[in-house]
């Protein structure tokens, strides 16, 4: 029996952790993640889980301890945001390079300077090429569901890679929403027993982790590593299908919202997709053929599938909640452009930057983008390839 509750995104994810009961969790406070690990720590203190917590002195040590704990041979999780993720950066690559299935919610928050505790996607975008699988989540339900699926994906014997679950700081982490919780035993059965692979604690069969590999073999090791990512989308879909059976909720590599016959398209991640979908419905009611693509598996990025889903549009705006400074485009735009570049038929592409440091993404912002796309579809003319929207003048 599912249970319907009204909780914050952080509470929902903490509850997923309670149901999964990792062997070890490392935690270090950072807004807006703090509430998640605080709630989980209460489950530990009250004996509701047998998890051992490591209350470290920094995020660098949080992830370092997770690497040690995962190599030791058990189920491991942590969580972070913003500067914390930035501090972990060095170890992100080590966790993925050592093929350790660590699960980490990233509660998206802007990066300093100037310091800002509110939502944008700069943190996780900066880690997008660190070898972690990234699942992005529109709302608290998706954050909860993705967390449960993340353990299965990470721990799949063909994958064994760390996974980030991204959801928007404050907008999702601290807002109360309606959530359907699965039963504890349903979640436990779905996630299953942890299967160790080359555990350090198997002292009879000693293994060395973290060798030096130089010019003779490093290139080959990295090539072999890159091959693993090709297997990820299939596993993500298989896990989603099984998850649908226990939850009734369907997940794919990305969400295709009224896109099939659309001429105008928007690509957008996380919570702002919800607002945009409402506007799309309004425009559809007025006969405007507009649709949306919301990536879920952002790393590894399903370029071919995304390209196929978008190629027939006339015009497309990629909305980025992070900028790639240095005269470049937003990171999501770059991936969408890459997924379309080899199709002979493809839409005109523009990039809009919104919502940095928690600036609200309002329905009128979505409307503004759709109106602009309508004009471009009519005239074929782009005024600005990349521009910030919602800027106070």
């Amino acid at each position: 029996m599912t249970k319907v509750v009204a909780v914050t995104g952080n509470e929902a994810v903490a509850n997923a952790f309670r149901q999964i009961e990792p062997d070890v969790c490392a935690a270090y406070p950072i807004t807006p993640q703090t509430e998640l690990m605080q709630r989980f720590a209460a489950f530990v203190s009250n004996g509701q889980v047998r998890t051992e917590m490591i209350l470290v002195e920094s995020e660098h040590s949080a992830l370092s301890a997770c690497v040690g704990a995962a190599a030791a041979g058990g189920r491991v999780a942590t969580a972070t945001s913003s500067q914390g993720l930035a501090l972990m950066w060095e170890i992100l690559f080590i966790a993925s390079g050592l093929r350790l299935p660590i699960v980490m919610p990233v509660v998206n928050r802007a990066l300093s300077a100037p310091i800002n505790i509110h939502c944008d996607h700069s943190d996780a975008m900066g880690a997008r090429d660190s070898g972690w699988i990234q699942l992005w989540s529109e709302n608290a339900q998706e954050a909860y569901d993705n967390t449960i699926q993340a353990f299965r994906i990470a721990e799949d014997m063909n994958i064994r890679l760390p996974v980030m679950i991204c959801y928007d700081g404050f907008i999702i982490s601290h807002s109360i929403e309606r959530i359907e919780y699965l039963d504890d035993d349903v979640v436990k059965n779905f996630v299953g027993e942890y299967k160790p692979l080359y555990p350090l604690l198997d002292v009879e069969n000693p293994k060395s982790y973290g060798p030096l590999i130089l010019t003779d073999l490093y290139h080959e090791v990295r090539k072999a590593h890159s091959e693993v990512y090709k297997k990820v989308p299939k596993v993500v879909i298989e896990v989603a299908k099984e998850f649908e059976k226990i939850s009734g909720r369907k997940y794919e590599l990305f969400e295709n919202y009224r896109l099939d016959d659309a001429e105008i398209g928007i690509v957008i991640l996380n919570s702002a997709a919800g607002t945009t979908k409402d506007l799309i419905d309004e425009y559809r009611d007025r006969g405007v053929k507009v649709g949306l693509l919301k990536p879920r598996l952002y790393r590894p990025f399903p370029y071919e599938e995304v390209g196929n889903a978008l190629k027939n549009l006339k015009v497309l705006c990629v909305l980025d909640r992070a900028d790639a400074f240095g005269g470049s485009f937003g990171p999501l735009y770059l991936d969408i452009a890459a997924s379309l570049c080899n199709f002979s038929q493809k839409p005109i592409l523009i990039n809009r930057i919104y919502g940095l440091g928690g600036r609200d993404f309002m329905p009128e912002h979505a409307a503004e983008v759709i109106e602009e796309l309508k004009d471009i579809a009519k005239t074929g003319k782009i005024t600005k390839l990349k521009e910030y929207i919602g800027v106070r003048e």
Partner: protein
Amino acid sequence: MATPLNLKELSKQEVRFTAGHRMCAGCAAPIVVKMVLLAACDYSVVVASSTGCLEVSSCISTYTAWKVPWIHNAFENAAATLSGVETMYKALKKRGKIDKDIKFIAICGDGGTYDIGFQSLSGAMERGHDMLYICYDNGAYMNTGIQRSSATPTFADTTTCPAGAVIPGKPQQRKDLTRIMAAHGLPYVAQASPSHWPDLMKKVRKAIEIQGPKFINIFTPCNRGWRSRNDDAILLSRLAVETCFWPLYEVEDGVTRITVKPKDKKPLIEFLKAQGRFKHLFEPGKEKMIEHLQEMIDKNWESLLKEEEMTLPKEEGNK
């Protein structure tokens, strides 16, 4: 029964750090590692190392010198990494998934311990993980080519504080990490030297049998960095002890014991003159610098003696 720490019995034990590693000829670090693992011969152990000489030379491509489970994560996080391994051990024991007794040992250089790894070490010790952290202290970043660390002795010539016309080697005093670790209130902290191997092994044995976080700082000569002969690692370790440059002592539950007291405290100059890194101190007009170093050593030794007197129980002190 515990294996007695004598040569006859120890020689029967498996050496769990094998030959074929790529450490330099005459390096004291593999000697220290073998002594540590031999002292721990009655236990299954998991070892963690920070990036450094020992790490890059002991596990290369498909070869490893470690016959025990071993993990290298990064430069600054061996303590945090091992705290993760140890916590997983506790978690799996609690769930009945593991029944063996396993000990956890970090073996890291001074750069990865005193400097970049200091926060990770302090954090792991404060959290009270059941682990023994060993620093093999060779007093500089030897792996990258002899750069100064906070463990580098005053006036030593290194590649980032070269003895020049204006600056005479490292201007600062070395960080006394052993004292800092003792100030964490750990159940066991010690300094050891491979020249005094029974003392070193006794300390490792003692530390490993105490529950909680332990720290041992081990003097580890590096002939490349110190510009000394490559067969004098043990000689230099002994001189370091006999001149009181590296006193052998332990702090156990707040009680300080000097475990080896030199019968005749040798002048520091004996230790300095065998090393090229102090060569510039023997140029004419630099006598004051050696005097200054001698004063520092004397002051530290006196305060250690006082500390022992203050903390040692009367009945033990009167022996």
